[in-house]
């Protein structure tokens, strides 16, 4: 393989990794920080992809508007989901809450998946290119992909700033570090978790928009994607957003690279197998010392 195709491969790997990273960051926001497991994350992503396509068909010229409106709508949907299904049981410690949350969100994932299947009749969503292709030497990069890559980076920077510099982000981090203490000084666990869940759902929706821009999306994509991203979150340990981000980028790149010698099917097999091996080797996370409390 010559150098330029290597670079080309690396770029498409980074894009797939960017999707994984966005999904993983959204999950990490809930699971890694607040111990709230969400298996319906991928289902929201897929639903957002289909909704976006429907909005596009309805209102073709305003791509940017739907890029803002769809995530906002999903933030509301996420908040509502949290209120209806998850909030009532959040008062316990996060240890006891993981398994019920897993069951509830898995159920939600099924309902959303079947809803998407029924509404859009098993079709695959995909979006035609919006921007011109950029040619640089022998390396081609479609404009869509470049815009997506830039947007993804911008979103993760904004998220990081929100988490470290704003009051809302500080409250969230306080809850993750010391739930009892944080509640004692007047931080509402349900309210903050609701906000985090809504943000995570909006992130899933954005990842869904990017996904339809880059690839095609089908209703069955949700759960495998969620599972891979969740493995990344567990492996990278709790309490961080940058490690899942890096993990997602690394997994996407690795999967794309492995697809060259082994084919896409075996690449997928190998990536799930590798994640499972890491998970069983260090269940408490790769970067966490054994003495720290494990989250599961």
């Amino acid at each position, binding site marked *: 393989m010559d150098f330029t195709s290597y670079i080309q491969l690396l770029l498409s790997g980074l894009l797939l990794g960017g999707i994984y990273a966005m999904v993983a960051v959204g999950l990490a926001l809930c699971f890694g920080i607040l111990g709230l497991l969400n298996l319906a994350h991928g289902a929201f992503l897929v639903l957002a992809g289909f909704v976006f396509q429907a909005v596009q068909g309805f209102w073709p010229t305003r791509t940017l508007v739907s890029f803002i409106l769809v995530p906002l709508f999903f933030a509301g949907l996420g908040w509502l989901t949290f209120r209806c299904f998850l909030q009532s*049981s959040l008062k316990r410690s996060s240890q006891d809450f993981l398994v019920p949350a897993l069951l509830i969100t898995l*159920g939600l994932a099924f309902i959303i998946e079947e809803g998407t299947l029924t509404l859009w009749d098993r079709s695959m969503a995909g979006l035609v290119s919006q921007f011109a292709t950029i040619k640089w030497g022998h390396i081609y990069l479609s404009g869509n992909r470049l815009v997506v890559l830039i947007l993804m980076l911008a979103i993760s920077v904004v998220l990081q700033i929100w988490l470290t510099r704003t009051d809302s982000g500080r409250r969230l981090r306080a809850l993750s570090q010391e739930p009892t203490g944080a509640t004692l000084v007047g931080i509402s666990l349900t309210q903050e978790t609701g906000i985090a869940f809504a943000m995570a759902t909006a992130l899933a929706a954005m990842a869904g928009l990017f996904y339809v821009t880059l690839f095609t999306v089908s209703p069955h994509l949700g759960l495998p994607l969620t599972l891979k991203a969740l493995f990344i979150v567990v492996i990278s340990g709790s309490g961080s957003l940058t490690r899942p981000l890096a993990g997602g980028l690394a997994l996407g790149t690795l999967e794309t690279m492995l697809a060259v010698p082994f084919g896409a099917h075996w690449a997928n*097999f190998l990536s799930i197998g590798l994640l499972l091996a890491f998970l069983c080797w260090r269940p408490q996370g790769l970067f966490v010392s054994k003495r720290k409390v494990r989250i599961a």
Partner: protein
Amino acid sequence: MVYLSVKPAKLKRSGLLIIPLSALVLLLFLVPTLWGSYARILIFTILLYVTLAVSYDVVGGILGYLYLGHGLFFGLGAYITALALKHGQTLPLALLLGASSVLPVAALLSLPLFRLHGAVFALATLGLLMLGGQLASNLADFTGGAAGLSLLPNTKPMVTYSLALVLALAAVLMHWLLGSSSLGLELSSIQESEDMAESVGINCVKAKRLALIISAIPAAMAGGLHAREISFVIPAEAFGLEYSLAPLLMCLLFKPGTTWGPLLGALVLSAAQEFIWTTVPGFRLSLYGILLIFIGMQRAKRS
């Protein structure tokens, strides 16, 4: 087999049950001749679900782990049995082959899997299920890939039916005996507190490994019978979520850890499935979804 010994008192107490039970078994054997092939297929499916639910309960109920990988053993059993049948083996031999090849898989997988607990364990077993499906569609030379593997039509439906009945009975009996055997008691003490169980000298690793093997073998045989009955195996179905989730729901619906709980759950849920899937189209997954949400919220309230 001291490990699996049962107190004779329990056997004596339940002696009276034998008469109605044998009447029921006789009736079930006569179902196909009395009511025709629709009843046979319906009861066959219910019997498979009973097998799956009761064997799931060994890990999901008695041991109390949330476990989403039961379908992995179902799928493996289905594929191995189908391959053996394709190469001209008889059905009993093919089923035994399926069951015996699942044994080392379960034993090996138990080592890394039981390092995990709670939700991460559940996620890892779900990952294993997906890995199994991917493997079945990747090894296209053996398994026919994603398009599946088709067998010659089932010429002896009565044999498959009787085997399913025997398998379901054996699974229920095994579960019932396990409940009061020393292994069953060890497993329920692990459920209550693993550290405590370890400290009174229970070999937790060994007990959990045995539990996984005991639960995997009936699942593999159910998979093999299913493959024979419909004469067709496809990764999306054999390794689909349905055969992991249905036993989980059947087990958790009533009282997990008892024999009657998963048994009743299997009867109720498979009857409900049959009713809903034939009346409301496009409602396969949502039924599971609603039940999962219901059980999850119930669980959150209780803990």
